[in-house]
């Protein structure tokens, strides 16, 4: 039998104004198990807490009921008080007689009666409380960053600088991501490569950072602090330990007709290649879809020219398993396909391009060596039309995305400005719905494009692009002039919406991390925990969480890193003790609980039991991983036998509360 102390708080007049606290304390004193009952003006004050501690000692209390404000307010406070008095902190229950009683009822008799019932329910529950101890688990002091773009690089660097080892897994042969493909960056117009490549080099040379390039995560087990991750290192047919990155092979390879994905297919590369000059690691890879040697067994030029002997046509995919304490998703984005927007004639004309393609066309390392030339005929375009919001802000799931892609207004202003700067003889039109430039120095930047560089911003949307001879007839609305206009353009640039990388969805499944309907990772709280996934130990960096520009990505990457550092700095993790547990003798092993668990916290084990008839039997029983369980209790209802119960919210406890309320 418990020895329960009841403490009724006045909360000044907040409670005492509508609840007769003395009567509540007196009435509850007669409840079963209650050996002490008192009221006080402010239970949460130091004096109030001291009163509780003294009563615990004097009356040898084993459980506490605090009738006060919401447990969401002071449950933690009173648990600490209990612990300070030598009680298990989970022997405390709160009766919420402020937010859910005195503040919502006006009359003293009614408020008092309800407060008594709420108090009785809490007493009934405490009678069945048991001391709970949070589980402990050790922390593997190594982090995994999935994705090697600017987000992943920054997160990895920050974690590594704090002294923890980090691995980056990147699916392409080099890190760098989308930023490596950009020309200049808004609003300062520094060259992307100039600010990115030093970071890439830092990451490549950092003693705490390992880069698994051309690799993918194929399996994730374990839980916060103790993840077990399988990484597939795809065969690149070049030995990483031997390749010096001299690039001779990439010049001699006879297969020249491979579309160069780094330049978005606007030029070609060889079958053996290094994606770009500043690649990290600077190691060649063979594209098995195009390599003549791998396909037919005849060629071998690269092996012949490689003085380091790094070419290995027999290389196989390699799987390695590494343990991590924390995982950061930094899988990034891609522009959406323009297939469903052919009113802009993207598939009909080479001179209709996306903004990312435009970046490559203006980049010195791009297919035109930085000269702005039309893909169709290599001529200099004199009239360029930029179309904003292509596929962004669309309702209905069949076409485009509902959200604003956030970066297009700024990069389009940048493209327009740079074009006018380099080629003043070019007319530049930007069709916009709204120009959205919240950000430091962003609107100023956009205004400069208009005022200093003479970019024609027209409010309205393009309705149709018609290729006609070597022109593109752009038919559009000019809403402010109230007319439909036609422009004979030489080049049309579409600001395609961005979407999460396709690898994010399967990764979320491996991580049991949640995603929204657009396949962006969901954060644990949109405002207060924006870089954490609801799944413990999983953090979010960059555009995999939502559209972001570079400054935002970098700051979020740092924030994710600081969360990871905070986790890895701990030697042990304390869990939430209110977790599910299974009574193995009653468990049927039917898997119902496992199926509803959103965290994958339930597994099954075959265990040997002595049966009542003295024989032994191997039975399949559910085992809850307390470090992973978050305590929702869904499994307890899925379980038909009642073997599964939830600590702190046990079925018997809840039913005792029901009984107390209904009596």
């Amino acid at each position, binding site marked *: 039998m418990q020895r329960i102390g009841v403490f009724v708080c006045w909360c000044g007049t907040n409670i005492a104004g509508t609840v007769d606290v003395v009567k509540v304390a007196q009435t509850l004193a007669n409840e079963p198990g209650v050996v002490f009952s008192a009221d006080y003006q402010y239970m949460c004050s130091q004096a109030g807490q001291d009163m509780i501690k003294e009563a615990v000692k004097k009356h040898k209390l084993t459980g506490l009921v605090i009738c006060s404000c919401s447990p969401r307010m002071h449950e933690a406070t009173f648990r600490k008080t209990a612990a300070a008095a030598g009680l298990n902190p989970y022997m405390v229950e709160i009766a919420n007689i402020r937010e859910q009683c005195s503040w919502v009822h006006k009359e003293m008799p009614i408020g008092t009666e309800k407060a008594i019932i709420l108090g009785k329910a809490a007493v009934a529950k405490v009678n069945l409380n048991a001391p709970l101890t949070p589980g402990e688990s050790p922390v593997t002091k190594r982090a995994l960053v999935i994705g090697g773009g600017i987000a992943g690089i920054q997160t990895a660097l920050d974690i590594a600088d704090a002294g923890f080892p980090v691995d980056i897994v990147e699916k392409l042969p080099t890190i760098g991501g989308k930023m490596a493909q950009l020309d200049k960056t808004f609003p300062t117009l520094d060259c992307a490569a100039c600010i990115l490549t030093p970071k890439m080099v830092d990451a490549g040379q950092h003693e705490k950072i390992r880069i698994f390039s051309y690799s993918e995560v194929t399996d994730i087990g374990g839980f916060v602090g103790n993840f077990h991750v399988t990484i597939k290192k795809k065969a690149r047919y070049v030995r990483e330990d031997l390749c010096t990155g001299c690039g001779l092979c990439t010049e001699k390879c006879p297969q020249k007709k491979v579309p160069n994905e780094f330049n978005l297919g606007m030029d070609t590369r060889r079958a053996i290649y290094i994606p770009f000059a500043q690649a990290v690691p600077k190691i060649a890879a063979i594209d098995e879809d195009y390599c003549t040697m791998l396909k037919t067994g005849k060629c071998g030029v690269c092996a012949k020219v490689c003085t380091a002997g790094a070419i290995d046509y027999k290389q196989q995919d390699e799987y390695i398993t590494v343990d991590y304490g924390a995982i950061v998703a930094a899988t990034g984005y891609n522009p959406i396909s323009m297939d469903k927007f052919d*009113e802009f004639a993207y598939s009909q004309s080479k001179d209709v391009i996306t903004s990312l393609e435009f970046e490559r066309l203006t980049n010195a390392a791009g297919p035109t060596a930085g000269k702005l030339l039309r893909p169709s005929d290599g001529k200099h375009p004199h009239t360029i039309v930029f179309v904003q*919001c292509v596929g962004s*802000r*669309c*309702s*209905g799931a069949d*076409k*485009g995305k509902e959200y604003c892609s956030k970066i297009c207004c700024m990069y389009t202003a940048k493209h327009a400005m740079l074009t006018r700067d380099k080629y003043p003889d070019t007319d530049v039109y930007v069709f916009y*719905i709204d120009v959205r430039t919240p950000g430091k120095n962003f609107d100023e930047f956009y205004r400069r494009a208009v005022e200093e560089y003479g970019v024609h911003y027209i*409010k*309205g*949307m*393009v*309705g*149709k692009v018609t290729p006609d001879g070597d022109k593109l007839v752009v*038919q*559009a*609305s000019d*809403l402010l002039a*109230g007319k*439909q206009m036609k422009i004979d353009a030489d080049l049309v640039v579409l600001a395609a919406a961005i979407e999460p990388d396709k690898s994010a969805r399967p990764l979320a499944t491996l991580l049991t991390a949640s995603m929204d309907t657009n396949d962006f990772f969901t954060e644990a709280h949109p405002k207060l925990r924006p870089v954490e996934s609801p799944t413990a130990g999983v953090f979010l960096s960059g555009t995999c969480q939502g559209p972001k520009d570079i400054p935002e990505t970098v700051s979020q990457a740092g924030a994710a890193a600081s969360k990871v550092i905070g986790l890895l700095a701990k030697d042990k993790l304390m869990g939430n003790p209110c977790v599910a547990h299974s009574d193995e003798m009653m468990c049927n092993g039917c898997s119902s609980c496992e199926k509803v668990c959103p965290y994958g916290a339930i597994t099954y084990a075959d265990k040997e039991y002595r049966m009542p008839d003295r024989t032994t039997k191997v039975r399949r029983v559910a085992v809850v991983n307390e470090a992973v369980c978050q305590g929702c209790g869904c499994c307890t209802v899925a379980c038909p036998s009642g073997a599964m119960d939830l600590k702190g919210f046990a079925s018997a406890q809840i039913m005792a509360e029901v009984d107390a309320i209904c009596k």
Partner: protein
Amino acid sequence: MAERNNMKEQILRTSGVNPLKCMRCGKCSATCPAYDEMEYHPHQFVYMVETGDIEPLLNSESFYKCLTCFACVDRCPRSVEPAKLVEAARLMVIREQGKNRLKPDDIPAQLDEDMPQQLLVSALRKYSK
């Protein structure tokens, strides 16, 4: 005011369109093949219905120029379906007694020998009740 609201209600009910979905990008008007022939353009139909400014729409002949080609319907990023508002406004007028735009008697003068029957029935449907 009540009259205004009634007319708006009627148009919304007939068309089934929710003009509040419009984000005012003007793509409907950008794509409209009959734009230059219209006094009020597709995006204005949406906006004016939203604000209840229906009279001018009914007094204009703009809706007789709509080809019902559904380009605005398919290209609208917000699924507003402006053509349905145009249709609703046109019906509001031609459903009134004596307001038929095209009378069967008018037809013989328009005929030529290649004209398909389809053209006549469509025009009658669109211009008369």
